[in-house]
């Protein structure tokens, strides 16, 4: 999935191209950075903390209670439980989506907990953990829209997407004209105002939106076949740490912790 551009559109384009540059650089075999060597469980345990990169503005996954209160959310609770299993403290570093991968590559964080969906590009550039969220993508239009009933109808219509999200590619793939936005909230706003015809996002985001807004004037008309699998992203080569995290996730799944966290945010178990 995901998401979000900078507050300024111009800045966004630069950040995107920079992210692309740095991703390219780390793919090169001789990229000299230590950051590309990967992390081990021993290194994290030695430092005593797991440094987590997250947005802090992506409800209900990573956000501040009441807007300026404590950091909380589904991803925050899951990664905190994982760190507990690893026997380390958890430290959160908050930044915007477009800077998150740069932060991971430069060793600013050990892990990203921000609903990073697994795709080929990311699997090539990072070590991905096992997924802890499973959610289909949905096509959302205004209630009054009768022209778009499925993804196949999307061709020739406009869709609001953030450029770094994988939903962007879904929308483009079905022939939509994409309007660049910062994230879900803007997309929903444009859709409500009738300035775009549709938006593609994950189902959880929309369900949360409906839960808080009540009558949104928007509806889901179609669902992707493949659910998006969202996981933690680690620096490339962190197989040892990823194995430990996967083991922790498996334990949390077995003892019902993941299901409980999920129930508290979504009213259903989205962790598998």
């Amino acid at each position, binding site marked *: 999935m995901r998401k979000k551009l900078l507050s300024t559109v111009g800045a966004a384009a630069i950040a995107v191209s920079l992210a692309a540059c740095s991703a390219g650089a780390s793919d090169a075999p001789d990229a000299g950075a230590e950051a590309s060597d990967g992390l081990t469980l021993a290194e994290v345990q030695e430092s005593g903390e797991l440094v987590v990169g997250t947005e802090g503005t992506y409800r209900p996954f990573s956000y501040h209670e009441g807007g300026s209160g404590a950091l909380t959310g589904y991803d925050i609770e899951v990664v905190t439980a994982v760190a507990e299993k690893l026997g380390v403290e958890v430290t959160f570093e908050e930044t915007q989506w477009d800077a998150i991968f740069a932060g991971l*590559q430069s060793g600013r964080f050990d892990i990203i907990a921000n609903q990073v969906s697994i795709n080929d590009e990311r699997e090539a550039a990072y070590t991905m953990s096992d997924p802890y969220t499973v959610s289909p993508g949905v096509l959302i239009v205004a209630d009054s829209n009768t022209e778009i009933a499925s993804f196949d109808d999307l061709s020739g219509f406009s869709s609001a997407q953030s450029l770094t999200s994988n939903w962007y590619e879904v929308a483009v793939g079905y022939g939509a004209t994409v309007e660049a936005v910062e994230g879900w909230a803007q997309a929903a706003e444009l859709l409500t105002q009738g300035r775009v015809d549709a938006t593609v996002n994950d189902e959880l985001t929309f369900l949360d939106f409906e839960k808080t807004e009540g009558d949104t004037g928007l509806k889901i008309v179609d669902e992707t076949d493949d659910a998006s699998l969202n996981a933690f992203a680690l620096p490339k080569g962190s197989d040892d740490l990823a194995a430990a995290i996967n083991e922790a996730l498996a334990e949390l799944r077995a003892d019902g912790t993941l299901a409980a966290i999920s129930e508290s945010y979504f009213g259903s178990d989205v962790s598998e």
Partner: protein
Amino acid sequence: MDWELFWVSLWPIVRGGLVGTIPLSIASFAIGLVIALLVALARISGIRVLSGIARFYVSVIRGTPLLVQLFVIFYWLPSLGLLIDPWPSAVIAFSLNVGGYAAEVIRAAILSVPKGQWEAGHTIGMSRTTTLRRIILPQAARVSVPPLSNTFISLVKDTSLASLILVTELFREAQKIAAFSQEFVMIYMEAALVYWVFSLVLSTAQSRIEKRLDRYVAH
């Protein structure tokens, strides 16, 4: 307008300005001015290597986006083994940026002082450095206050980019509240209002400094 949300979010946003935006702006501006003065002097020094380096620096700073400058210092330097914390990184990036812009302001201000002033200093036996310090810079300072105030006010708003390198400031607080409440337009307008109030205070300071520096001028 959701006035309740407006009032509830006002303090967090203002606080973000007081603990983030303002100190970051002041520190960066102060260091930036020192850099700018050195660069301006290098450019008018007549020493080709010095003025060449200064010219290159100004060209890079003015010719590349501030966002990239922040990214280079925070996200790229670590690959050279230089891991700088968020706050110092932000101060370095903003200082260098201010240095590039303000150098041109200061250079122009120095050049705007009539050549006769240099000659006058020389005539009464002052060295070049003393003339610069006692005669030229005070006059140049007065000329450069309005454009430097512009640079400063721009800087205050540019610091909103610091959230990309993990610095929590005014705009980041606004983003957090907007993301929580989904009230993007209202909260961003509120943040803009706070920036504006800050700018009004700064403009007042500007006119005071202008008045003070006017004492160097014979009316």
